[in-house]
């Protein structure tokens, strides 16, 4: 009897270092700015310094005549190009026409006016200074509340934030006139959607356009969009028949790439005396900005969907008011609507606890949807897939030593010290999502190809840009096929390589894209077994450890032998085609609903108002974990962005619509010395809606963080009668409270 050694090593669930890293740590990865082509031209965009103005005239004569300049285009020239799309259809939604260059009016600081193209980027920049624009400056509106009547309730602000991906946006367009082929390299999270929409804007057949998202240096939602510059760079390349590169400056990134949040919320929460929540009411004012970008109107809707939080209440009412302002549009930024909602709800629950003199942990435990109620339909029309909300909270309370801390706090208060303990328990809507609930199709695709040599190539419609799916997807495939990680290559981000796809956002890549991959692997395994059975001349075979084994004889055929046979096709099993490739477009039956509990312990400097985070405990439940190293990384990064919002970050426009935090000089992102140590822990409640049991973890940290921090600081200051503080919790705000309430 032949013996067969079977590989037993599995990869899913292990801390495996990432397969994408070698190119990134050696500086050999290719981001958009690294794309070089012979004859490259460079585009620089002239933008409005005014928030609202009429353009009386634009004089480009001097710029056109400047050294190295090839051409200058203004709004007059681009009449044939379609508008920047808004992907959300709603009854009575007002969608202002959004041309790729301004024509007669500008609506925000940074509004593109003209594009200068030169053979050298230094010369293009010089020439941009030579364009004369005559503006008639008009009054601007930068504050969404100023346009509306006053309502007095608990007002909670989620301030505007700048996503600030480390790599700014950038586009390289390469037009091959003879082939009618436009190649567009763009730093995006959604290459296929960009292709469909930009081809439409340019009037180009979609199959004549190839979009490549090379290495993408972070997105956080800001690259989940279709931007004027993508069409503009393509347009210029088609006009001058040369490759053209446009790289966004950081200043442009601050003023012209979408911002996140921008909510003013008015909440009401009703409860019985015993703390049972009866209902939550919200009026939400969304600062839209000057236009609707791709998903702008969707974001506040996500907030409303998330309004029940983890709580068992069926009484929810929400009104959304979208307000146009002379500011850059808001759109999806990490969490996209869900951090705003969670912040509001978790603040309200703490206020309720204070009102009823209940412990904030107790009131949450009392109101959680209990384990036995899943799948749980919410008042907002969702069905929570699975959950066990008390477990992570109890675990977090244990880990932080909650009862001891409360005693310590009581002692600290006797000495007039300000120490706070803040809890936030969050839920989120992830794995976006079933198609009927999404604007662009909520499925994801995967193709798995086993090459004749037995090596495995995966093409995913997800478009990871830091999330590590080149590794986690390889882990899934390696375990399913019983091969090593080195046998697998994951390709993404190129419309000429990948069938079609939706992209990476909304904590969806693994839950939806990974599931598509899982099902494609099942199809493939069936075919491998068929061929194996044929080659082994036995019906009783098992696929394991990268081999098909005859259960009777123990004889086996390796994947390589089988793959070779499928392509050589000397003999085929009945009703089977040659080759070894499977594609699945997988539609999820529901969203997933991760959850968790974050507890933050703060100490406040009573003299300066500075906040020090003593402990940060995060217990997140994202279902099954494929790679703990990557999951922890996602949690840490998410928390950093949540903490950024809670303590430092704010995009501030002055009354004239000037973004006065328009550079890293004034917009404070978290730096290493500002971050606390994050104690990251997990519970595991698998999702029943996908075969991997995963829920998604990309946004959890951000969503869980900000209310925990604010609750902690409000808790510290509660002896002074402080009920609520809006973010960011700057030392000066705290100092003012200390000074006035003491």
């Amino acid at each position, binding site marked *: 009897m032949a013996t067969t050694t079977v590989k037993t090593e599995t990869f899913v669930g292990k801390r495996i*270092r*990432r397969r*994408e*890293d*070698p*190119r*990134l*740590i*050696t*500086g*050999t*990865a*290719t*981001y958009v*700015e*690294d794309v070089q082509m012979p004859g490259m031209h460079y585009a620089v965009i002239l933008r409005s310094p005014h928030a609202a103005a009429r353009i009386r005239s634009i004089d480009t004569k001097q710029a056109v005549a400047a050294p190295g300049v090839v051409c200058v285009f203004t709004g007059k020239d681009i009449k044939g190009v379609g508008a920047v799309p808004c992907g959300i259809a709603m009854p009575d939604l007002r969608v202002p026409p959004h041309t790729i260059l301004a024509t007669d009016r500008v609506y925000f600081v940074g509004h593109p006016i003209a594009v200068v193209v030169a053979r050298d980027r*230094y010369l293009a920049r010089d020439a941009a200074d030579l364009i004369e624009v005559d503006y008639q400056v008009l009054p601007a509106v930068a504050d969404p509340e100023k346009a509306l009547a006053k309502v007095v309730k608990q007002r909670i602000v989620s301030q505007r934030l700048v996503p*600030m*991906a*480390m*790599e*700014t946006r950038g586009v390289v367009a390469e037009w091959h006139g003879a082939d009618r082929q436009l190649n567009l390299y763009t730093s995006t999270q959604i290459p296929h959607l960009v292709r469909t929409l930009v081809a439409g804007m340019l009037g180009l057949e979609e199959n004549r356009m190839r979009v490549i998202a090379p*290495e*993408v*240096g*972070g997105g*956080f939602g800001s690259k989940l969009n279709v931007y004027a510059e993508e069409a503009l760079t393509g347009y210029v390349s088609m006009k001058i028949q040369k490759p053209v590169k446009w790289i966004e*400056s*950081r*200043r442009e990134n601050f003023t012209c790439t979408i911002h996140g949040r921008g909510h003013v919320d008015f909440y009401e929460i009703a409860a019985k005396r015993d703390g049972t929540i009866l209902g939550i009411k919200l009026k939400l004012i969304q600062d839209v900005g000057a236009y609707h970008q791709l998903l702008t109107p969707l974001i506040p809707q996500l907030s409303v969907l998330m309004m029940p939080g983890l709580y068992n209440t069926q009484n929810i009412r929400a009104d959304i008011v979208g307000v146009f302002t002379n500011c850059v549009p808001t759109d999806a930024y990490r969490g996209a609507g869900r951090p705003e909602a969670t912040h509001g709800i978790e603040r309200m629950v703490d206020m309720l606890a204070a009102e009823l003199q209940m412990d904030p942990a107790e009131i949450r435990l009392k109101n959680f949807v209990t384990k036995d109620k899943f799948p749980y339909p919410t008042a907002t029309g969702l069905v929570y897939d699975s959950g066990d909300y008390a477990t992570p909270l109890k675990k977090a309370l244990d880990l932080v030593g909650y009862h001891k801390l409360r005693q310590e706090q009581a002692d600290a208060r006797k000495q007039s010290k300000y120490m706070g303990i803040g809890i936030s328990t969050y839920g989120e809507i992830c794995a976006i999502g079933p198609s009927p609930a999404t604007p662009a199709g909520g499925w994801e695709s995967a193709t798995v190809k086993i090459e004749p040599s037995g090596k495995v190539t995966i093409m995913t419609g997800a478009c990871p*840009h*830091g*999330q*590590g799916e080149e590794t986690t997807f390889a882990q899934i495939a390696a375990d399913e096929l019983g091969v090593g990680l080195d046998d697998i290559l994951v390709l993404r981000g190129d419309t000429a390589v990948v069938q079609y796809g939706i992209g990476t956002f909304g904590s969806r890549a693994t839950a939806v894209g990974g599931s598509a991959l899982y099902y494609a692997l099942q199809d493939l395994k069936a075919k491998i077994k068929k061929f194996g059975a044929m080659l082994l001349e036995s019906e009783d075979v098992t696929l394991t450890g990268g081999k098909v084994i005859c259960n009777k004889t123990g004889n086996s055929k390796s994947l390589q032998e089988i793959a070779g046979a499928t392509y050589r096709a000397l003999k085929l099993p009945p009703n089977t085609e040659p080759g070894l490739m499977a594609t699945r477009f997988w539609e999820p039956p529901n969203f997933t609903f991760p959850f968790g509990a974050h507890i933050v312990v703060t100490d406040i400097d009573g003299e300066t108002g500075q906040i020090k985070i003593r402990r940060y405990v995060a217990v997140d439940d994202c279902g099954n974990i494929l790679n703990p*190293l*990557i999951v*922890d*990384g996602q*949690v*840490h*990064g*998410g*928390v*950093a*962005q949540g903490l950024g919002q809670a303590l430092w970050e704010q995009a501030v426009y002055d009354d004239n619509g000037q973004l006065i935090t328009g*550079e*890293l*000089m004034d917009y404070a*992102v*978290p*730096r*290493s*010395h500002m*971050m606390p*140590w*994050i104690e990251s822990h997990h519970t595991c409640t698998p999702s029943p809606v996908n075969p991997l049991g995963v829920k998604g973890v990309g946004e959890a*940290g951000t969503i869980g963080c900000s209310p925990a921090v604010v609750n902690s600081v409000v808790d510290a200051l509660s002896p002074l009668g402080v009920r609520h503080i809006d973010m960011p919790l700057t030392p000066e705000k705290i100092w003012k409270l200390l000074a006035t309430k003491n």
Partner: protein
Amino acid sequence: MDITLTINGKSYSQDVEPRLLLIHFVRDVAGLTGTHMGCETSLCGACTVELNGKAIKSCTMFAVQAKGADIVTVEGLASDGKLDPMQEAFWNEHGLQCGFCTPGMIMASKQILDRNPAPTEDEIRHGLEGNVCRCTGYQHIVNAVKAAAAGAGK
């Protein structure tokens, strides 16, 4: 102006405009695109390279100012296919996600250990003050620097 710079042990001579930034010399003249430009106010650190043994921001220096200097970029760290221990540590500890800040982060991290072979967590965090990472929350980066320090101490 004619200038000659040594980058990763190789000499590059070029007639450049005085206003050419060092990062553009590194990226465009030497063709080493591992060094990234992340801001224009010298605050993000993505462009960090080593100049005569010191970590500096190559976006805040004109190439002519670096005339005759010896520069090391992220591409110069691995030798004969063997990664620098700091690169290895970033990989092992998952000290990167999107990777855009990583070359600058690795160069700044090396400077920390050059000057202090056994830094505390606080010293590491302060040593990285000039480098922004938007993905990792820094914790795994701190772990990487600790691991590299521990490895070097063995």
